[in-house]
């Protein structure tokens, strides 16, 4: 057993895992939040988009990674495919919480804002988003924690990350390897949950 080698591996794979999650969540937020805001303006598409996000969430994660491989441009083996899959997974909580947060703003407050002469843009940035922030952040938190877990499956399609340990451990019936993947993943999830929870609290109305 070469312990120093394992520690080194844990460190570098945790880093890779973290970057994978960071990129996926960054892109998912960049897509999910504006899309969510758009859906509050165009309720016509709400059913379709939420339905799509819902279906994505119900596809077993291993299968979703598999489905993406043959698709041109976004598919193939490697990180890119893994990131696409993770984005699809994260979308539902982000979309839903953005919608719920914004639609949950007290109608009297919204009416006042409009009646005071706020433009739609001012209404969004000065009233709706600040008031929806705790709910939206709760969505980000749920999505992040899930993504950290799901990202372990990325290794199955060559996406790297802590899943590499887990898959290797399963193949060689080596509990140490499995733990080397699972424990840092769990720690990462707990840390993110705590950190985002703290931010969420700071955004709540005093």
């Amino acid at each position, binding site marked *: 057993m070469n312990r120093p080698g394992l520690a080194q591996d844990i460190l570098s794979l945790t880093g890779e895992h973290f970057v994978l999650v960071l990129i996926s969540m960054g892109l998912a937020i960049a897509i999910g939040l504006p899309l969510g805001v758009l859906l509050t303006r165009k309720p016509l598409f709400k059913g379709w988009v939420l339905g799509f996000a819902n279906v994505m969430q119900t596809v077993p994660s291993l299968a979703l990674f598999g489905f993406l491989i043959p698709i041109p441009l976004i598919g193939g083996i490697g990180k890119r495919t893994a990131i696409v899959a993770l984005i699809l997974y994260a979308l539902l909580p982000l979309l839903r919480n953005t919608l719920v947060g914004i639609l949950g703003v*007290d109608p*009297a407050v919204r009416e*006042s804002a409009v*009646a*005071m*002469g706020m433009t739609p843009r*001012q209404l969004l940035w000065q009233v709706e988003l600040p008031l929806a922030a705790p709910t939206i952040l709760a969505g980000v938190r749920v999505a992040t924690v899930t993504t950290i877990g799901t990202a372990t499956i990325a290794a199955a399609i060559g996406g790297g990350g802590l899943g590499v340990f887990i898959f290797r451990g399963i193949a060689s019936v080596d509990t140490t390897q499995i733990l080397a993947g699972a424990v840092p993943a769990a720690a990462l999830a707990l840390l993110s949950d705590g950190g985002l929870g703290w931010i969420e609290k700071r955004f709540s109305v005093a």
Partner: protein
Amino acid sequence: MSAPAAVEFRNVSFRIGSHQILDNLNLALTSGETVVLLGRSGSGKTTALKMVNGLVFPTSGEVLVDGRATTSWDLIALRRSIGYVIQEVGLFPHFTVGENVGLVPRLEGWPPERVGNRSRELLAQVGLDPLQFLDRRPRQLSGGQRQRVGVARALAADPRLLLFDEPFGALDPVTRVELQDQFLALRNQLHKTSLFVTHDVREALRLGTRIALLDRGRLEILATPEEFLRSREPQTRAFLAVLDLGAQTIADESE
């Protein structure tokens, strides 16, 4: 040629599907007066009020503000020039009292120092100590204090007219009278044209220079409080019966 009415409803009707909410409403407010729209729930009074600041548009007829139809106004500019106070107050919970009051001036791009001064001045005017209240959050206020802030916010950018939608409806009777007194004091001081919606006949008699009684979307009676009290119309009697009931109870108790 006289100056155009501050607000004029001209043959205004509003319907949703087959439901007639306003039926050929004609009403003109002259500058400086307070017209109270009195009516039961569903009489169309709130709808009429919301037509003035363009939250609702007539399905036929037009509403004119300073002689111009609301449909031809720049709505953002129109709304910023009209103070609006509603029963739920609708203060922004993530803003301090000062930020709430200074909202419209800020939207209008006043320099921060002037906004601050204006907020302090208005809080004092509605009977709240600026030092004590400026930095509080709406949730730290009582119902009456919140509504005072709501009134201050409506007055902030020195609006051409004020709209009130049952502003004191959710307050306890004592606070309600205090705020009505405040309203009267402010009116004597500022001479703002106001349109005031209520279902409370006492409030209408106290605050209105004229009372417009709406019933199922129709303007039934337009009268000064004195005329209203003397009126023998069944519609007015129905509202005044509330007062008689009060007087009766007092008479009964003193027997």
